């Protein structure tokens, strides 16, 4: 059965990876926009490094983490769009007639997002290094950044898949994108939390898991190894991923029953 399971996952993963990477409209914006925002932020907000208590003298180094999380947000859109397309075209209905296991279907569907996440993480790392943002935690730290950004991609991708399975609508998937974007903007994206002056905003950023995902990546880039920041980052990303996968799995069961 486990061999069958691996085969099922492999077949669907191959399809998902090829489908995702063959769509320039899915790949290019997810690389271009985070890099554009990074580049604009680095020049536009470099003077913020003069604030007392700012952790680095390079805003590029501070902002690099944003690209990883923003890229992962595109994963939600891509995963959701792919899954909703499968619902709308009836592909999922046809799969429901086969002995395919639900978990295999979900894992296979998310494989494309993981491949996109890997491409994004490596690209952002290379561009960041070429632009002069050193990684304080070294090569191992860079590997950890890639792993964490994959978990973040999985988390947001699973949210996209959940919405797609729940609603079966590509438009609904597009509709959650602004909400996820809001989660990024209402975090410690632009300034460290201790430098956010507006009390309510600092409070929201403190409760927002995206802040900890950013701070974990940022810690490796700016400070080196910070166990607490890394633990919080992995816990938030992993927690969101787990909840979203369970929700998506439940939505898939309901959709299969409807079929």
């Amino acid at each position: 059965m486990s061999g069958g399971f691996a085969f099922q996952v492999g077949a669907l993963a191959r399809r998902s990876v090829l489908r995702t990477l063959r769509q320039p409209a899915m790949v290019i914006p997810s690389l271009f926009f985070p890099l554009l925002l990074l580049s604009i932020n680095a020049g536009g907000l470099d003077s913020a490094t003069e604030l007392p208590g700012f952790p680095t003298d390079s805003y590029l180094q501070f902002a690099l983490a944003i690209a990883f999380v923003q890229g992962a947000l595109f994963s939600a859109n891509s995963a959701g769009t792919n899954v909703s397309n499968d619902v709308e075209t009836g592909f999922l209905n046809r799969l429901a007639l086969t002995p395919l296991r639900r978990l295999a279907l979900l894992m296979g569907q998310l494989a494309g997002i993981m491949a996109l996440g890997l491409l994004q993480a490596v690209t952002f790392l290379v561009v960041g290094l070429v632009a002069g943002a050193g990684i304080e935690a070294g090569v191992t730290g860079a590997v950890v950044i890639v792993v964490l950004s994959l978990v973040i991609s999985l988390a947001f991708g699973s949210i996209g898949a959940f919405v797609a399975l729940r609603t079966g609508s590509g438009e609904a998937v597009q509709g959650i994108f602004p909400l996820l974007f809001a989660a990024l903007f209402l975090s410690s994206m632009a300034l460290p939390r201790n430098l956010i002056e507006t009390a309510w905003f600092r409070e929201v950023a403190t409760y927002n898991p995206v802040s900890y995902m950013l701070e974990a990546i940022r810690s490796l880039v700016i400070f080196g190894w910070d166990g607490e920041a890394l633990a919080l980052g992995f816990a938030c990303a992993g927690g969101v991923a787990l909840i979203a996968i369970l929700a998506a799995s439940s939505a898939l069961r309901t959709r299969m029953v409807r079929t």
Partner: protein
Amino acid sequence: MSRGSFTSVARAVAWRSIHSFFTNPAIIIPSALFPLFFFTAFAGGLSRVDSVPGFDFDSGYTAFVYGFVLLQASAFGGVFAGFAIARDFESGFSRRLLLAAPRRSGIVTGYWLAALARALFTVGLITVVALVAGMDIAAGGLDLVGLYTLALLVNAATMLFGCGVAMRLRTMQAGPAMQVPVFLLLFLAPVWVPYDLLTGWVKTAATVNPITLVLEADRGFIAGDPVKVLAAFAVAAGLAALMVLWARGGLRSAEQAA
């Protein structure tokens, strides 16, 4: 081919678009939420930036951000109107409109009036929120007229740009072609800090970006200390005039395809 037929076409198109905007939650909510969201995120998350040495804007960071978000809302109000035109082409409505309208330039005017109504609604909403959030506005009556006239000129320019793109490509997939250039022009201006505090290539881009002049004049009006007014109006009016030609070309292209 009377003046009356032009007015009636413009009025009918405007009424339909305005009605569709105010009665469709899927259209009105993102239009209102996005600028509000940017205002909240920037004014709340970055307010400490006004303590950076050299940040010289006496009205405070909320007013500084309001200046940008006002322009952004006006510009994207125009872009979203372009989306609506593209949607009308996809649904086949525009083709019927082109066949039925006695004066087709009235169609573009109608869409512009609708974009104006959308911008007035969004700008009004952001202004109320900014005032509730404690924005300190030092502008006098004449400054306010200048501020909002400038914003509406930007709205007209982006709407005409979107209209030209939508009428040439006639598909919703043209969305990025309308959105990305406007996004780049806006964000390559001094968005978060004054021009003098920009660094690197962004400063170079802001130097040659005409929107920098518009944004600086816009913030000058807010602070009650108008600067670069003539240059900003020349840029905004010039862009709008250029976009009239672009939209007229789009209309010709759509007429040939109809």
